[in-house]
């Protein structure tokens, strides 16, 4: 635990996760949402969501369109403010934290649409997240590592606009990983990609998870892709957690099959 974290935990004004409170010790829970609600006018996109991610876990988030998957990720990153409920990260209540402060704590996100900077080169795209915390040789090393993690060696000086859609997805994962996060949130990272490109992204995700110990939450519709990478799967339906478990159990669950076909579940 860093000195900053020690200050945060000892600060009585900062709420801590129930698990930490009950035992007085830290658990392995990296992220926990507690009764998270998000309403847009009369529409409830997140309906009292209790969702947890353990350290180093690779969890996929599935569910039919409109289930609230992207909303949940945007609540976690701070893009949306919740109507009710709390978000705890590494023992700290981050519900009111600004997006950039969540990034500093170790939460990183890749958006659904590739959000690379078209006018910047691959190296400059990766430099942007790195330059906040690294200088000199360390910066150069981290930029190189992120380019390797993205699988874009040899493309360093190419403008991002010249990359293929798949390479842009790879670059964005490299940019998100360059932030040195503990938790990486990916919103449909293989949408619109070829089979080969999907496999490339899957390899990069599993390598970052296993070698760098980064926990992942991945939104994805393709169950074959999910089965290839995920430890655990969470199914969202109508803004709330519907099922959680290994992909084999989830895939064979009739209630899950039913909601994908447009039913009410149970």
């Amino acid at each position, binding site marked *: 635990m860093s000195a900053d974290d020690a200050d945060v935990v000892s600060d009585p004004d900062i709420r801590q996760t129930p698990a930490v409170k009950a035992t007085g010790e830290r658990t392995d829970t990296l992220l926990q949402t507690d009764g998270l609600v998000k309403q847009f006018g009369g529409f409830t996109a997140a309906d009292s969501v209790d969702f947890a991610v353990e350290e180093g876990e690779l969890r996929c988030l599935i569910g039919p369109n409109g289930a609230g998957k992207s909303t949940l990720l945007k609540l976690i990153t701070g893009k949306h403010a919740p109507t009710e409920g709390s978000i705890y990260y590494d023992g700290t209540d981050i519900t009111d934290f600004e997006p950039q402060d969540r990034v*500093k704590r170790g939460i990183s996100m890749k958006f659904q649409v590739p959000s690379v900077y078209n006018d910047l080169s691959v190296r400059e795209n990766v430099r942007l997240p790195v330059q906040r915390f690294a200088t000199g040789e360390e910066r150069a090393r981290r930029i190189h590592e992120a380019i390797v993690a993205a699988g874009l060696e040899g493309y360093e000086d190419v403008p991002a606009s010249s990359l293929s859609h798949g390479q842009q997805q790879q670059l964005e994962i490299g940019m998100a990983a360059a932030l040195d996060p503990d938790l990486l949130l990916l919103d449909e990272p293989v949408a619109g990609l070829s089979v080969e490109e999907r496999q490339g992204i899957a390899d990069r995700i599993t390598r970052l998870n296993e070698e760098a110990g980064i926990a992942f939450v991945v939104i994805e519709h393709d169950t074959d892709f999910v089965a290839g990478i995920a430890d655990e799967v969470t199914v969202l339906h109508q803004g709330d957690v519907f099922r959680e478990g290994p992909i084999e159990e989830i895939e064979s669950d009739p209630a899950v099959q039913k909601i994908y076909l447009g039913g009410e579940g149970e």
Partner: protein
Amino acid sequence: MANWLNLAFQFLDSFAFIVLAAAGLAIIFGIMGVINLAHGEFILVGAYATTLAVKAVGLPLPAAMLAGAVVTAGFGLVVERTIISGAGPNWVWERLEPRLSAALPDQAAAVLPSGPLIEPLYDRLADSMVATFGLSLIMVQGARIVFGNSIDQVATPFGEVAYGAFSYSAYRLVLAGVSVALLGLVYYVFTYTDYGMRARAVIQDDRTARALGVNTERTYAATFALGSGLAGLTGALFAPVISMQPTLGSQFLVEAFVAVVVGGASVVLGTALSAAGLGAIESVFSNQYGTFFGRIALLLTAILALRFLPGGITGYIERVRKRRRRES
């Protein structure tokens, strides 16, 4: 030969004037999407601060010019935090509102705004024009009330250089050099520094920049301060050669806006190309038909540019680049 020299001098003079008039405005517009109609008055702040630093404080002219730019950058930061981003008033209101609500009867408390008082003016072109136009009126009248209708000007340094029957102000030649150096400096800042990287990222997509840990508010504040500082530097550099009146900023506005419109979104390339093109047009027409027709030619060029190059020169270049990329 002498007329060619005359023409070259006029071109350099126009180029320097346009670059220096437009640089600060282009940065603030290009990066923040804010049209600063008080740009001329930021130049006024730099000019007055420089003049007063020489006359009242006794600083040597170069130090006074630096002080003029720094004072204007500081002033710009205050304007950004209060008017453009609204962060200052919102901070005060956030603390005042609960106390007012508690002190007032329920019915009165219910009409108090519960959220932020001011929404940031970033990328709100029309709103930013109204707000900064109001600011410019306040600044001109404020300067008139505090300093009167004019203040004493500082002397023009360096004297003159002569060629045959013609003589030129050496200081104006120095200004041409400074304008080129300034373009180089702005290019360096936006291409190689950490701040420049952040600013270029924020221009393209501030949501992603935030997701990558960039404090976009701080980047916007720094950008406004930098743009203001450059406007202040323009005022400082022209303080020895223009009349020190509260309305002096209006002399720069036409060239500044025409250059930004013609140049397009790219700060350095747009400003450099439009200053070169407009400088050439203005100097040729001024040289042949007088200053009045020089300005008419400048404005006609702006109208034609708006009609045929709505994205400016750099917008056109970008379109051509994209087409070539698609074809390849």
